[in-house]
């Protein structure tokens, strides 16, 4: 069984996103970038399955400009066997539907039985690509998983899904796509020898134009603004008495 792990390079999640007023886009010039944290969890899970002997190969895929190769190298350094880089040449505003179509091509070419990916990227927060990919391929889907167990015959997997009402357990027939949630595992760090070794692992480049997919944006960003979180008064109180009396004056008790 081959496992494909689509991964994304994003602004480091602990860095504050800033808007470039001129371009009306989030400014990523000289910003610290990292692998999307959910993708790290996906890589870790794929590696664990490979180490258990249930998979023959793990393949990381990423789509973007040349810099995306750094993120693929990180995956290789963590232990992934090989990488596929889809080169977009310039900074295209690729959306989940585009990504799903490109990934569907790669999954079919590789005849992968299992696709493990993050449930969302922490930049656009769409939470869509895995679901779209599953629809395009008509594969079974387990979103938001916190537990993954392959069956002994390798034909299905049992997953626990973190949903609003609690934890749902389902059995997915393979081929399947799973999108991972935070509590699935703790991703490993790449060791220095493995970082060195990653440099000689296979990395294939494919031009995005070779897929013959219309990548013009369906949903265009008109403007962005930093209205997100605003500071408030932070009035100090010293006791339960004072706090409760403030709250009743505010009419929220």
């Amino acid at each position, binding site marked *: 069984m081959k496992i494909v792990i689509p991964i994304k390079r994003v602004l480091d999640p602990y860095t504050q996103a800033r808007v470039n007023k001129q371009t009306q886009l989030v400014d990523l010039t000289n910003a610290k970038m990292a692998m999307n944290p959910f993708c790290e969890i996906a890589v870790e899970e794929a590696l664990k399955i490979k180490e258990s002997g249930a998979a023959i190969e793990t393949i990381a895929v990423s789509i973007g400009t040349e810099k995306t190769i750094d993120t693929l190298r990180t995956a290789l350094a963590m232990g992934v066997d090989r990488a596929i880089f889809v080169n977009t040449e310039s900074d295209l505003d690729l959306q989940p539907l585009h990504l799903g179509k490109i990934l569907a091509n790669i999954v079919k070419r590789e005849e992968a039985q299992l696709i493990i990916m993050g449930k969302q990227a*922490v930049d656009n927060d769409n939470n869509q690509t895995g679901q779209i990919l599953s629809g395009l391929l008509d594969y079974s889907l387990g979103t938001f998983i916190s537990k993954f167990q392959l069956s002994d015959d390798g034909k299905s997997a049992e997953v626990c899904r973190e949903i609003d*009402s*609690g934890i749902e357990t389902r*059995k997915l027939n393979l081929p399947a796509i799973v999108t991972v949630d*935070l509590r699935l595992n703790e991703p490993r760090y790449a060791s220095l020898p493995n970082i060195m070794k990653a440099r000689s692992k296979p990395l294939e480049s494919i031009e995005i134009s070779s897929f013959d997919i219309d990548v013009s944006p369906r*949903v265009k960003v008109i403007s962005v603004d930093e*209205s997100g979180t605003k500071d408030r008064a932070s009035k*100090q109180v010293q006791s339960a008495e004072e706090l*409760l009396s403030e709250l009743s004056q505010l009419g929220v*008790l």
Partner: protein
Amino acid sequence: MSALILIELNGSEVSSNSRAAITAATQLSDKIDALVLTDDSANAASVASLDIINTVKVIADSKLEHVSVGVASKLVAEAMSDYKYLLSGSSTYSKNILPRVGALLDVQPISDVCEIKSHNTFVRPLYAGNIMATVESSDDTILMTVRATAFEHSGDGGSATIEELSLPIPEPKSNFISLQESQSERPELTTADRIVSGGRGLGSKENFALIEQLADKLDAAIGASRAAVDAGFISNDYQVGQTGKVVAPKLYLAVGISGAIQHLAGMKDSQVIVVINNDPDAPMARMADLVWEADLFGALKELNDHSL
């Protein structure tokens, strides 16, 4: 320009996030119908009494109990043929199904809409809500999930026509095994007027009971930071934040939560924010209307002992 609302049921009750989707749809269309997938057609009754809804399209089949996303998305895509818009309230239910419907209809869905600017222009959060983006869709059909905290929840009082759709139910590729539901007597987190939320600072599952005690006293729901959930103090469905639930209660009382941007993303629109923490420099304090800098356990004991 008609709109279809994909209704999420909790048992036989219409979820509050579906009610927010109905309100959002009124800004897009005069003719709003509802779609409900259920194992029992009797559940359509609560949908038919919703205000604003014209017709309730019901796909009822015993096979739809804990339906797989593959089956659900095929049925929704078929039911969508006459509509310009499909809206659903943001939840794990709609986030599971809607993008897959998008794949079947060749449409790019829009997640977590917070504001409707025009028939094809919407505002949605990026980067955990630190950035708000105005986006314009060029698709002929528009699919979106809407934030339940950004729109009023529509009420009851309507009498919609019920129309049963008899569509063949496709074979599922995944099967339901079990659901471990959290039982709680307290108000539901996403609709509660008051929330008492605990973080890593509480130190243990046993200490988290102090949060529960205070929540009961204030008739509040319980929330938690990711750190508290990861540490096993409380289960995942109480997590507030970028990857958990988004809430906007009248009162959000945060105890021992430092305030990572991922947590702030889930509660920043609360009307009154109170922080009890022993670290006055934590980011959470800047977000607060009221700050009580104190030992958490002393403060919680004092609050729990104080009469209201």
